[in-house]
């Protein structure tokens, strides 16, 4: 397989008084797609720059296939890098741009031509070699940047929010294309984005970063269904949060008193009676009582209906309680609820996520 494994060990990088990366240890298996997800200032771009070799850590080690490369300059790492603004050489044609890494390696012109053609075909830009970057659209430039980053059989591909300048439809299309290319080549990808949907769609594993620290690493499913803490639960997807105290624990079942509302969930290990915490339920997990037998049921009124095309989001006001968000897919029982309408909504025990109190 082409891809290399990556490992960061206790990597720390500070700029003056700001610690951008704070002692991060992270593994990326060969041939996998890892996304560094976080808001601005989370340190994700700094980590990518450290991996690329444009920055050097204050402490810690970076290893590729077990070999330390912490201080190796970028031109000796053979990593493909795709920048946010593509960074295509404006004075060179597309073919020259893509062939640049091969030229630096001193390969003969015929080989360069062949490999460039192959790379351009892979990104579906065959025949565009003679054009200049300024003659291409944003999406096409992006693909040239990608071609340049894989043409030299680079074992690792680093991508810094490459799709953020594209419009929604093009971006979603490119997400799948990038993912496809990664799978075909078997290259290891470290991808930086602040868009959690993008992270969930493209990645084998996602690392959520916050102020230079790793909050959670796992598959998209792990992160979505079992967020490790409140930050991850808030960052990924939407949730209804209820703060409360644990009243009772029986046979793996937790009863949490949330300001009078009793929530029953499956107890994670280490929970004690009397502990203050928050429970979270995803909006799509809220269902009408009529649909199933739900352990958690409340009487409520529809406050507001928001149409989002493939679903309808409802603001549901619980009687003597909080306002929850419910997301009902189209074509089901929740398709046509009106404001003011009384309903009984609920969710199962398994739908309840436990996170720390704010």
């Amino acid at each position, binding site marked *: 397989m082409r891809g290399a494994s990556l490992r960061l060990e206790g990597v720390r990088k500070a700029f003056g008084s700001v610690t951008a990366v704070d002692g991060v240890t992270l593994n990326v298996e060969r041939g996998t797609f890892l996304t560094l997800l976080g808001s601005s200032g989370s340190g994700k771009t700094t980590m990518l720059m450290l991996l690329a070799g444009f920055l050097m850590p204050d402490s810690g080690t970076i290893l590729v296939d077990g070999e330390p490369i912490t201080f190796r300059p970028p031109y000796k790492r053979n990593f493909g890098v795709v*920048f946010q603004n593509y960074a*295509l050489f404006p004075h060179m044609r597309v*073919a*020259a741009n893509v062939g*640049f*890494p091969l030229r*630096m390696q001193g390969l003969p012109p015929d080989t360069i031509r062949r490999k460039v053609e192959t790379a351009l075909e892979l990104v579906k830009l065959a025949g565009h070699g003679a054009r200049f970057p300024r003659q291409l659209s944003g999406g096409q430039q992006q693909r040239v940047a990608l071609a340049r980053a894989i043409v030299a059989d680079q074992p690792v591909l680093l991508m810094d929010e490459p799709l953020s300048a594209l419009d929604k439809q093009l971006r979603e299309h490119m997400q799948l294309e990038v993912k496809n290319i990664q799978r075909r080549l078997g290259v290891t990808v470290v991808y930086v984005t602040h868009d959690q949907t993008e992270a969930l769609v493209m990645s084998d594993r996602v690392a959520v970063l916050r102020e230079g620290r790793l909050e959670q690493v796992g598959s998209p499913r792990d992160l979505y269904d079992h967020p490790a803490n409140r930050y991850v639960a808030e960052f990924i997807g939407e949730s209804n949060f209820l703060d409360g105290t644990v009243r009772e624990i029986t046979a793996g079942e937790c009863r949490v008193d949330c300001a009078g509302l009793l929530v029953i969930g499956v107890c994670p290990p280490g929970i004690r009676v009397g502990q203050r915490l928050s429970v979270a339920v995803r909006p799509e997990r809220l269902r009408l009582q009529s649909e199933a037998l739900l352990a958690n049921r409340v009487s409520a009124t529809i406050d507001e209906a928001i149409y989002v095309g493939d679903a309808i989001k409802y603001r549901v006001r619980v009687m003597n309680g909080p306002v929850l968000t419910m997301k009902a897919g189209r074509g089901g029982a929740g398709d046509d609820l009106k404001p003011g309408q009384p309903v009984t909504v609920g969710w199962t025990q398994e739908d309840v996520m436990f996170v720390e109190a704010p």
Partner: protein
Amino acid sequence: MKAALGWPALVAPAMLFLLVVFVVPIVMVLALSFSGPQIGLQHYARIATTPVYVRVFGNTLQIALGVTLASLVLAYPLAYLLSTLGARTSIILLGLVILPWFTSLLVRSFAWMVLLGQNGVINRGLLSLGIIDKPLPLLYSAFGVYVGMVHILLPYMVLALYSVMRGIDRDLLRAAQSAGAPPWRAFLHVYLPLSLPGVAAGSLLVFVMATGFYVTPALLGGPRQTMIAQLITSEINEAVNWEFGAALATVLLLVTLLGLTAFNRLLGMDRLLTRDA
């Protein structure tokens, strides 16, 4: 729209002024160069055939070229450094570059007279340190003229280079490095080509200005460094040979325009000098 008719009118006062005080005099110089008293090319013939004048023109071009090259070599690293620094530091350093520019030409040339003279600061310093035992003839020599002119023209070159370098995306150098180019190759293949418009503009400006210099070569140069402007002045003020002086001035003007066109071609050629796979 009424405004569309109004805009040219705003330029009219300046236009009329320049017409009377600038264009007409220049045209009259051209006209004068062909007279004196008969209409003809006799002055130009004299310029072309008299070795003294040919030598002075050649001298001027040579000095201008040399000064341009020297300015380029000195300005490039400074401009590059300026373009990499943050806003606050670069403003201070830019100020240091612009300050000499704001200082009078005469003051700067005078300062070099003081520094380069036989009894000047540099010679006295070198003598006292024992590096030389006789003062060096720095003043009234080619060295003096070059140093003085480079000192005056350097800020132009720095600013021309800097304004282009500022627009070069830093990520391009990083992209080149991640693609396997060590710093010297990233510079050669990416940075240098992208800085060429600034090089062309700065060189053009400095060269053209250098050809017309008067004060500096007059104060810092010896007889072998006489430039055209000095010749023109002596013809007009001392020999009172206005027609001949006008001819010399016209030739200088022609050389200026030629230099402009030549460098313009270079600028245009730059766009075509792109790298193919």
